[in-house]
């Protein structure tokens, strides 16, 4: 039996030396090392021997087994490397195509802004897209027959109230939600309002009758202009990078006083002037101001106790600037060639 073990050892090592490839190795492994291989068979037979012999041969058998296994693994490594070298793999081949879905770019940019403001403790507020004339205009200090409510710009719904007037509109801005939110939550209040808005204007590459706005309102004791300015600076930096500068211009909006335009340094040319900013170095992005006392009153908030700031901008316009989209209609087109780019 001792001889048998030595013979297996010699035969094994000899065959291992001659092995050329992984197939040969597999044969050797099967013949000698597997559960039903020759070595196992011998070891199995040990159980019939005397205790003394069992001990002696058992130790020998185990040592040989270890030795053979080690040699086997070593050879396998060497042959494995040789073997791999023979097969050419084109590592530049693509992986299998994986289906992808896409969020609308407006959704993506809206989330960026929502995340900024929720991190500052703002709530996200909602309101109806089909609005009453009162909340869309009157409550925002735009009384009937005010030039800012031109019929040309507003979609009216063909349903008259008891006075015989058209008093339902597709909201022209997200601002009616300001007043609804004030009424719901009272003061102090910090809220942002993203949403779909409508203007009755013919569509072309630069005009859309359906677009998206994002606006914010903050009401507390002692909210002031300096606060407004610093919030707008934060928005600019978030949108266009840490070096973005803000400048503010007077602009009339009936629901704020003072009323402003906020312009940011152009993110493309960093203020030097380029095609995107029409060579001014500045991009007109945000409308803002301190909330008009009449608007606070309409929201049930006492303007003697509280003051507020408000700002708003077009998500559609931001998305166009940020992603270099030249045709505003793309966002509402459902065209995969557009959507799959995000």
């Amino acid at each position, binding site marked *: 039996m001792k001889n048998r073990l030595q013979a297996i050892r010699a035969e094994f090592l000899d065959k291992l030396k001659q092995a050329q490839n992984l197939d040969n190795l597999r044969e050797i492994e099967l013949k000698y090392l597997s559960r039903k291989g020759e070595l196992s068979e011998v070891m199995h037979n040990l159980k019939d021997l005397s205790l003394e012999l069992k001990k002696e041969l058992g130790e020998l058998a185990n040592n040989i087994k270890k030795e053979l296994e080690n040699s086997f693994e070593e050879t396998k490594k060497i042959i494995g490397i040789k073997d791999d070298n023979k097969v050419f793999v084109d590592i530049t081949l693509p992986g299998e195509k994986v289906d992808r879905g896409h969020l609308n770019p407006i959704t993506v940019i809206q989330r960026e802004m929502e995340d900024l403001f929720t991190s500052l403790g703002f709530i996200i507020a909602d309101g109806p897209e089909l609005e*009453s004339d009162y909340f869309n205009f*009157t409550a925002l200090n735009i009384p009937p*027959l005010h030039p800012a409510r031109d019929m040309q710009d507003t979609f009216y719904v063909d349903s008259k109230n008891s006075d015989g007037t058209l008093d339902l509109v597709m909201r022209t801005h997200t601002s009616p939600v300001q007043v609804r939110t004030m009424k719901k939550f009272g003061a102090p209040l910090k809220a942002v309002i993203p949403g779909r808005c409508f203007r009755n204007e013919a569509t072309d590459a630069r005009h859309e009758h359906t677009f998206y706005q994002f606006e914010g309102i903050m009401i507390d004791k*002692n909210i002031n202009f300096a606060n407004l300015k610093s919030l707008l600076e934060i928005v600019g930096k978030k949108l266009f990078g840490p070096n973005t500068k803000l400048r503010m211009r*007077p602009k009339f909006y009936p629901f704020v*006083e*003072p009323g402003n335009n906020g312009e940011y340094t152009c993110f493309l040319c960093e203020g030097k002037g380029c095609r995107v900013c029409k060579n001014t170095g500045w991009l007109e992005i945000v409308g803002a101001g301190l909330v008009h006392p009449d608007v606070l009153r309409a929201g049930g908030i006492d303007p003697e106790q509280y003051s507020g700031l408000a700002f708003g901008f077009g998500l559609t316009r931001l998305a166009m600037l940020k992603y270099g989209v030249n045709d505003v209609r793309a966002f509402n087109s459902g065209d995969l060639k557009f*959507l799959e780019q995000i």
Partner: protein
Amino acid sequence: MYISYNWLKDFIKLSPKVSPQEIAERLTSHTVEVEGLENQSESFLNIVVGKVLEVKKHPNADRLRLVLVDIKEKKLHIVCGAPNVAEGQLVAVALVGAILPGGLEIKTSEIRGELSEGMICAEDELGLGKDHDGIMVLDKRAKVGEPFSQYLKLDDIIFEVDNKSLSNRPDLLSHYGLARELGVIFDAHLKPYEKVIGEKLEFVNDKKIKFDVVVENKDVCARYMAVRIDNVKISESPVWLKERLISIHQRPVNNIVDITNYVMFECGQPLHAFNADNIKKIIVRLARKNETIETLDGKERALDVNDIVICDNTQPIAIAGVMGGRNSEINDTTHSIILESANFKAATVRKTASRLGLRTEASVRFEKSLDPLLTEDALHRFVSLLKKVCPELKISSELFDVKDKLPELSNIELDFVWLFSKIGQEIPKEQVVSILSKLGFKVVKHKDVLNITIPSWRATKDVKNREDLVEEILRIYGYDNIESSLPTEKLSVPEINQERMMERRIKDVLALKFNLSESYNYSFVGEEQLKKLNIDFFNHLKLANPLSEIHSMLRQSLVPGLVSNIKINQFKDDKLGFFEVGSVFFNAPGEFKKDNETEDVVPYQEKRLGIVMANNESDIFISLKSLVSGFLREIIFQNEVTFSEFENIPGWANKKLVAKISILGKEIGWIGTLNEDASNNLNLKLKVGLVEINLDALIKIILDLAPLRFQEAAKYPAVTRDLAFVIFEEILYNDLKREIISFNSLIKSAELFDIYTGDKLASGEKSLAFHLSFQSDERTLTSSEVDVIQNELVAHLANKFEAKLRNF
């Protein structure tokens, strides 16, 4: 709105160091956006003064001449067709490269075989008049070779001001108003308007001329001033007047009309001049039913009883504040005029102008609420200008000035402490006083409180309260000079908008896990689109003023939009999927109030989630169901989705492949496939499956769910048995399953793993195979125990559904 710098210089003198660009920038920073700058000296580029040296006949054309023109640096050969060209004339020569106002570019050319190196211009070709009878002959002061713009003394700068955003500032729709702002911005002296007006003429009452003014509705006409002027000679306006009007892009008409316009552009007050011939009396009243008037533009206008009209004894002669009538138009033979300088109610003028679609320079100003004190200045300014143009004029009536008591100037108290708290920092108090004073406010200081009187030109609509004053002070002080500072506040935990967060998660799961693309479709649909889908549209809310027929109604489903998403992409891929989250609108009362007073509500609106899938395989219904189930399980852990029979089958749906979707026993939406009819109507080549879910309802279910609890591992093992039941096709899976699960409490689950129909079954039969799991919380079930329940179940189903066990 165009503003001439030369005109502004009549009222203020700025340092010559101040460039027009700087004026534009500072106006934009402090008052109103200047959108553009036009430098007149650049307007006649490559057009110079030339002298005609020689005129010869053209050898090949009778009506053309060969002209040699000296332009100082060289002599040019030009072919000219004008009959009046003659040797010695000084003319305007457009050189090669010049672009005429009409857009014509001058090139070297051959005309009937003769070289022409430029063009001698007529007045109309230069945009300076209507004359095309011959070339424009310049006067002796023209210097050969000098730029034509220099000859015309075109040195003006024209600012283009964004007047759309000036709806609160009627005072700025004029040169004088903007000069006032520049005076404040640049700290320059503003010439008082009395001095601009010059000499005020005496008005005497000439008894021979019978003429009267009656205002019937003083609530719509706060002031009506009028005067009759005789001995007027209608002619072209003098050059200076025409130049001013042309410079701000206005077309000169005749001296009277031009001066009314001049005064309006100068001080902001619209004027109107009537031909006085047949007018004995001016009546200001509301129009009567069925009254009409032919306006100056030659159109017959039907009047409304809310329109203000100016009438003579018999009929309307003008629509107040909008446009004059043809019947009282000034013409070449007019000798007497009645000049109107009035103040009409803003809202009324606005309503009339927008109803008639007739926005005029006058109506644009009236609708912004003009200062009633302005009528007087404007009238005097008109008369003094007319006197210059028609020195022989005679004022032949008294000065009519019909008005009730004019509103008194109001006061606002402004407390510095309050002011600085609104700004967020202190600014020098003396600067606050100086800014307000220069803007025309009267300021009286008592310690830290200012008593401020609003000037009449700011009092109509614009400045009413102290917040308005904050704006005045801040914009002049400079928004850029305020240091920003973040608000300080007590920390508080904001209420999280759970609905919005859930909507976000739903979008993420659909786009990122189920690979659908998010589309945004219009809220508007059209009749044709709905007809193709067999959707009944009679109850849809309609727009009163739609842009087009295709967007004339408010959508009641996301389906039309989603189907169009497939349509436009169907040639791109044969496997498509989209989703949309959007609102739908119904002609029924909703939850949102219309206003703060009544109980009226706006129509019902609901947020929906729509999904569309398209491919060219036959099992679109199954794949879409898998997607919906997978999606709903992803967002509502553990809870099973059920599909059941749907009664309100939409017109576009395949009647066999449509089902209601429920979760936790609550209906949330439906799933269906597009039928052949709809698919053919829309030329769709792919099979289309659709899902629409009430997102508000779904989110409510999710938010009301009990918190997730993990189950403890079962103590005793389950016994599983696979059983296939052969039943009639009409028996629904839902019913069979419900029967199995409810048969015995030890049956813990029944999971469908195979459906078979085919040769081995009789027609009309199907086989549904289930993994049944039997389990007790108290002991290990024995095999024989399970056998008993299983046999009872088989017998029960045989009895209930005639179900047989599948035996192959």
